[in-house]
């Protein structure tokens, strides 16, 4: 992996887990009778995009989910199994996991009618990666050879194109990376890798207010702070042709307001029910309630950079602490069923996910917990402090985890709230905390490598623990150089097993999508990014 790889917590993607919510009786087109109208639009809860609507400039859900519908890149993720699925690309081949040959399908067009060519990808990526163009997602291109020229660590760019990108002809181009990354095509499903039409480069700023993409939906209007209207694009060539007439993104400031509108059918699909409705939404919505897994995990990390937390013995202490946490009860009561207990460091529903990697250490067993902590020489300093941000609704479960540890092992445990996310991050990355902290990971792309390489490799941007294991690094590097994505995923499973010995972090639970839809629509399913399968939603006639 190139060292420039950053912490990326993508909020966008296009997977849709075909799995339909537990607790929903029926779904899919077999729903409550009646015909559907493929010309009708449906409304979705959204928020005002933070930046102009350019594919490489959205890293938040408000803009991300709109762009994801306006654009389609080389590939996205299959609804049924979270695996990579070709869209504009006919194929992405490699023989050495470093140079990738891309062949495009013919017939794809932008919404302005111009064809989608290889140059549209290469130009878009070069533009997005160049520092001067101020694109928030520019670091996504760091794997590509020549990135340092368009985006040096500081100062002005020395080039405007990356040497790793070569256009062969209208339907072929090659991508050369700095190093071997067998699963690089998985990253290509991210919205930042979308193509841009030639017209974009004349007026990028104006374009950001009125984007022209190549995706299933085309832009109609952006009534700022109120709604973004899209309609389905008849010339769309993707494998997921829209079954509805378009999506209207209605902006809401509070989840409560959106939920109230959903219940009265003024809004068709929401993101996530508000915490105040978690206990009641299944009875409120009946079989229109949704409860499906997300590719995100909550952990408790340890400050392994401190000498007292180093050494094999302290791993026993961490394993013991893990066994003292009653995950089942906490997820059911405090978190009201909005999480599933974790059994591994990779979230469920992700390609390469293997349950039970954590082994017995994720099972609640007070006797064993006490014994392990004693064998490990007790918690350094005699007490445990868990740092968290107070603005994210974490207080309740941190207190519950501490209670669980205190009651079952006698270890003194307290929560250590920081005012907000930024303050907490500053304390964690600045190494000014002591002991343990809340941490988590939301997938950038649904592959186990994303949960492991970007978090636990030595020096990885998401490695706040100071964890460094030669064994883990070696297995990860081998997995990166593997000949296929499948082999890479299996390789990373081996690396994940190392985490069970060293225990740099305690896996707690996986996130879930708790959502619902109105009586106007059916066939609503959510993917592991927490997004609905947009094009599959059907609107009642």
């Amino acid at each position, binding site marked *: 992996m190139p060292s420039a790889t950053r912490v990326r*917590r993508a909020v966008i993607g296009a997977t849709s887990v075909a799995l339909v919510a537990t607790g929903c009786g029926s779904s899919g087109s077999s729903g409550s009778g009646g015909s559907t109208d493929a010309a009708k639009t449906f409304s979705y809860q959204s928020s005002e995009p933070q*930046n*102009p609507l350019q594919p490489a400039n959205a*890293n938040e859900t408000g803009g991300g989910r709109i762009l994801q519908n306006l654009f389609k890149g080389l590939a996205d993720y299959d609804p049924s199994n979270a695996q990579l699925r070709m869209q504009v690309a006919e194929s992405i081949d490699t023989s050495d996991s470093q140079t990738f040959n891309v062949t495009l399908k013919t017939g794809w067009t932008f919404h302005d009618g111009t064809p989608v060519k290889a140059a549209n990808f290469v130009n878009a990526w070069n533009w997005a990666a160049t520092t001067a163009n101020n694109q928030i997602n*520019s670091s996504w291109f760091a794997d590509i050879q020549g990135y340092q020229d368009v985006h040096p660590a500081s100062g002005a760019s020395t080039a405007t194109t990356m040497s790793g990108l070569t256009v062969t002809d209208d339907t072929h181009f090659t991508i050369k990376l700095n190093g071997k990354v067998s699963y690089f095509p998985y990253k290509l499903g991210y919205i930042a890798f979308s193509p841009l039409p030639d017209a974009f480069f004349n007026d990028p700023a104006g374009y950001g207010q009125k984007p022209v993409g190549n995706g299933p939906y085309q832009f109609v209007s952006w009534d700022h*702070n109120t709604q973004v209207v899209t309609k389905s694009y008849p010339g769309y060539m993707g494998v997921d042709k829209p079954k509805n007439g378009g999506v209207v993104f209605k902006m809401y*400031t509070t989840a409560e307001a959106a939920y*109230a509108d959903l219940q009265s059918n003024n809004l068709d699909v929401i993101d996530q029910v508000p915490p105040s409705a978690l206990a009641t939404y299944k009875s409120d919505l009946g079989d229109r309630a949704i409860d499906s897994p997300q590719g995100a995990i909550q952990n408790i990390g340890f400050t392994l950079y401190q000498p007292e937390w180093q050494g094999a013995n302290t791993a026993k202490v961490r394993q013991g602490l893990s066994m003292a946490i009653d995950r089942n009860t906490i997820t059911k009561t405090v978190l009201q069923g909005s999480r599933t207990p974790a059994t591994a460091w990779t979230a469920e529903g992700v390609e390469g996910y293997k349950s039970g990697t954590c082994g017995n250490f994720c099972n609640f067993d007070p006797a064993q917990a006490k014994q392990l902590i004693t064998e490990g020489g007790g918690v350094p300093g005699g007490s445990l402090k868990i740092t968290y941000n107070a603005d994210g609704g974490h207080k309740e479960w941190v207190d519950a985890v501490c209670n669980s540890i205190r009651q079952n092992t006698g270890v003194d445990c307290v929560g250590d709230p920081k005012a907000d996310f*930024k303050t907490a991050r500053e304390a964690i990355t600045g190494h000014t905390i002591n002991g343990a902290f809340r941490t988590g990971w939301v997938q950038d792309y649904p592959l186990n490598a994303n949960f492991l390489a970007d978090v636990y490799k030595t020096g990885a941007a*998401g490695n706040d623990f100071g964890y460094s294991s030669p064994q883990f690094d070696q297995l990860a590097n081998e997995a990166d150089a593997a000949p296929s994505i499948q082999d890479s995923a299996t390789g990373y499973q081996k690396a994940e097993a190392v985490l069970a010995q060293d225990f740099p972090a305690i896996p707690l639970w996986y996130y879930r999508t708790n959502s619902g839809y109105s009586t106007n629509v059916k066939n609503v399913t959510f993917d592991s990014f927490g997004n609905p399968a947009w094009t599959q939603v059907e609107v009642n006639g």
Partner: protein
Amino acid sequence: MGSYILRRVLQMIPVFLGATFLIFLMVYTLPGDPIAAMYGDKAADPAQVASLRHRFYLDQPLWKQYLHYMNNILHLDFGTSFTGRSVSSIMADAFPVTIRMALIAFFFEIVVGLPLGVLSGLKRGSVADTLVLLLTLLVISIPVFVLGYIAQTVFATNLGWVTPTVQDSTDITQLLLPGAVLAALSLAYVARLTRTSIGENLRADYIRTATAKGLPRRTVITRHLLRNSLIPVVTFLGTDLGALMGGAIVTEGIFNVKGVGNILYRAIGQKEGPTVVGIVTVLVIVYLVASLLVDLLYAVLDPRIRYA
């Protein structure tokens, strides 16, 4: 009178400069970097952050940023938000909505609050008086978000008279319910303030004189009693108009009204300096003008108050 107004207007200039400077200082020196906030929970790329900083003029020392900002404001340029829109056009969308809602609330306060206060003030100790006191106490003690959710549940979810949230923020009929909720608290204060003021003035000498002169009760109340009793109420209403404009964040959130509160809430969350300072600057002007009007109204209400 003319020189008084001139003096008041001139006084507004330092107040305006001071207020905007403080707001600017608070927004731009608050812990937390607006550019880092754009990256959410991701680690920001240092090269990109430096470039973005330069673009939004954030790489300059604070005093330069302030001068730059004030200079732009003098040219009626409020800057650009991160979304690439001019702050002026953002405000042009949001202020009319909030003004409408504030006026509806203001209307409720005067049409409902004042008569209630007059009624209970004139009939102290009666059943009506007790009822008004109880009702207003109830409203004052309920936080506005509770009131908002109750109104939403009762009128939208249960009765189905309106939609739970405002579907079109420019439609004045849809703003009636949020306007009423917004008015509730101030309405209670107006009623109680009027009641007390009337109760005091009822025992005043000039009322006794007016009554003794044999003036009809109606004339005594409207010409003499109300006119004098309204001075504290007008003071309250004047400053309240400013509060209604800026303080609607909760109500606008509950009913999803696309007004100033809504924008301000989002902009503060993203530390979008230009939008926050721009909106608050306009709110400061609203306050200043409202309090000027209040002061001028005093002279109309009480001839003894004259501005030399």
